[in-house]
């Protein structure tokens, strides 16, 4: 077995390499800061492996384009940031509804609107959950290191394929542009998941029929299954229906299909939480400052721990609730005006004090700011 060399690479590059390692062979995108490097790398690497890259005429088209490619059986990726992610929302909802596997990397920049293209932020947490209209399932993963950009993009592709849902990889500008030394895993050590293909002959195929897995089998376009895909409510044959009972059956399955796989989907990191009296809940680049704060506070004898959700949506609620029951307070530093805080407050408010440390001015939250907040809470 060869050992890969240590390399100094960017988070965005790690995302691109992770996608290719996971089997992505199709990318459509549109230039936007601070995610453009992902498109640039894909444009260089994909044709070398027989894959396809296309720069579409706009963000909406990029999202639609990868969904078309996914229907032919390819693993697909797009990448963008704030304004572009806003534009993609309708097609992301289509992917949720029609259950088309796809991965969207959002390198978050400071919003709203054009905001700060080169400024870091974590302002798209709630957009990732509820950006498209209507109730819908979604997965969002949030790396805090360059290595994790690689690993979580692999995981995102696997989740998208296995659960037939759009999956976000939520970077922030710092994580996307930061360079770190990484040793990427060997190809043979990377777990690859493919979508379930039909187990029936074309004549018997019902594209949205499911067994207890709740995930239907998906035929590649062009293999004779001749199936229909629509964003309208549909029955298990895939054709539109307005019958309330069938609409409800579809929506209940869509809204519960990820629950069944919580153990696999929910990822988080706990640091020094065993005896913690104060818990910091932080994610993405903010978690790096939080970890530094934890180390410094521990050196000063203050019992503080870190809970870092890696899966942001669905949120690892039970894990946090368990920890919150044993601390005096929970602090949520994030680079927005309190988005994930709403979720944390909902989970923790009956168990301990909750407070937020919010900053959205283009500068990262520093360890000292977190330390000051912890001292204030104590």
């Amino acid at each position: 077995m060869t050992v890969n060399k240590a390399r100094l690479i960017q988070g965005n590059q790690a995302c691109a390499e992770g996608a290719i390692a996971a089997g992505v062979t199709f990318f459509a995108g549109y230039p936007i800061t601070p995610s453009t490097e992902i498109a640039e790398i894909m444009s260089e690497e994909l044709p070398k492996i027989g894959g396809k890259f296309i720069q579409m005429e706009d963000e909406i088209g990029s999202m639609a384009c990868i969904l078309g490619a996914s229907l032919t059986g390819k693993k697909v990726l797009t990448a963008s940031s704030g304004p572009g992610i806003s534009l993609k929302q309708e097609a992301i909802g289509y992917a949720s509804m029609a259950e088309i596997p796809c991965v969207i990397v959002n390198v978050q920049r400071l919003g709203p609107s054009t905001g700060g293209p080169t400024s870091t932020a974590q302002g798209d947490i709630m957009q990732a959950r509820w950006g498209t209209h209507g109730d819908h399932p979604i997965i969002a993963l949030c790396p805090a290191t360059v290595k994790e950009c690689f690993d979580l993009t692999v995981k995102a592709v696997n989740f998208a394929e296995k659960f037939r849902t759009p999956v976000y990889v939520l970077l922030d500008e710092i994580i996307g542009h930061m360079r770190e030394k990484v040793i990427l895993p060997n190809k043979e050590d990377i777990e690859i998941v493919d979508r379930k293909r039909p187990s029936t002959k074309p004549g018997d195929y019902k594209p949205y029929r499911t067994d207890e897995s709740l995930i239907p089998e998906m035929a590649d376009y062009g293999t004779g299954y001749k199936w229909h895909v629509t964003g309208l409510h549909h029955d298990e044959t895939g054709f539109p229906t307005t019958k309330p009972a069938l609409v409800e059956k579809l929506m209940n399955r869509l809204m519960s299909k990820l629950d069944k796989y919580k153990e696999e989907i929910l990822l988080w990191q706990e640091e020094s939480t065993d005896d913690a009296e104060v818990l910091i809940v932080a994610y993405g680049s903010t978690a790096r400052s939080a970890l530094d704060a934890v180390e410094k506070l521990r050196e000063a004898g203050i019992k503080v721990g870190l809970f870092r959700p890696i899966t942001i949506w669905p949120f690892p609620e039970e894990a946090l609730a368990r920890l919150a029951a044993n601390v005096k307070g929970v602090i949520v530093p994030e680079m927005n005006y309190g988005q994930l805080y709403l979720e944390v407050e909902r989970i923790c408010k009956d168990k301990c004090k909750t407070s937020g440390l919010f900053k959205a001015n283009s500068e990262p939250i520093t360890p000292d700011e977190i330390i000051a907040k912890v001292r204030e809470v104590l």
Partner: protein
Amino acid sequence: MRPDLQELFRMEKLPHIWCPGCGHGIIMRAIAEAIKESGIDMDKTVIVSGIGCSSRAPGYMNFDTCHTIHGRALAFATGIKLANPELNVFVITGDGDATAIGGNHFIHAARRNIDLNVILFNNNIYGMTGGQYSPLTPTGSKATTSPYGNVERNFDIPTLAIAAGASYVGRGTAYHDKLLKDLIIAGINNKGFSLIEAISMCPTSFGRRNKLGNAAKMLELQKTAAINVKAAQKLPPEKLEGKFLIGELHNKPAPEFTEEYDKLIAKLRKEAEQ
């Protein structure tokens, strides 16, 4: 229906949802006849649509079909064709879907000359939402959102497609169904972006409001107002007043996008081997 065409339809889904006298059914059959006659592999054929009356057509057609979101059919189709160039990809779209909300994808798909067979059902109106004016509603025509007559100018679709880079452009009508079928076949045989404008009629939302008479009268209007491009060449300009051209309007082969991309892949492979 003709027995030999039935395998191209999801017969159990008929009758379709379109209004009495809507021209879309005639155009949908012309597409089916063209596919049948062209002899392409139906298992390798995908039909994509957006949103609107015309975009309901793929639901009735027995292929891999995709009823996408408003305006984006061409972007989905671009992904399908680029991901698997072996597939024959058709796009069924309407005047609003293709030239208003989807206008950007329309010109760029044409610019790339990607091998898509686009059939644009032009009924001059947003039918599904009850009759609002579209970019193809003629100036002066009434719609629910142009109650005093349309103040805007309308597109000429073939001119737009040609200017944007489409390699094959034709126009047929529901009345001239055989011509329409032949144009679609020519589009299938063209390796590149083929745009066939199919003039339809909407007696419910356009004809009634503009006092054009019933479906039969509207079909008659297509017969009298259309003039074949070949015949038109021999006529003086005053004879073409108030007429529109039908037939093959543009046929100029050009490099096709997915083939060019595959050449790039082959070149990179060769370089890597050396």
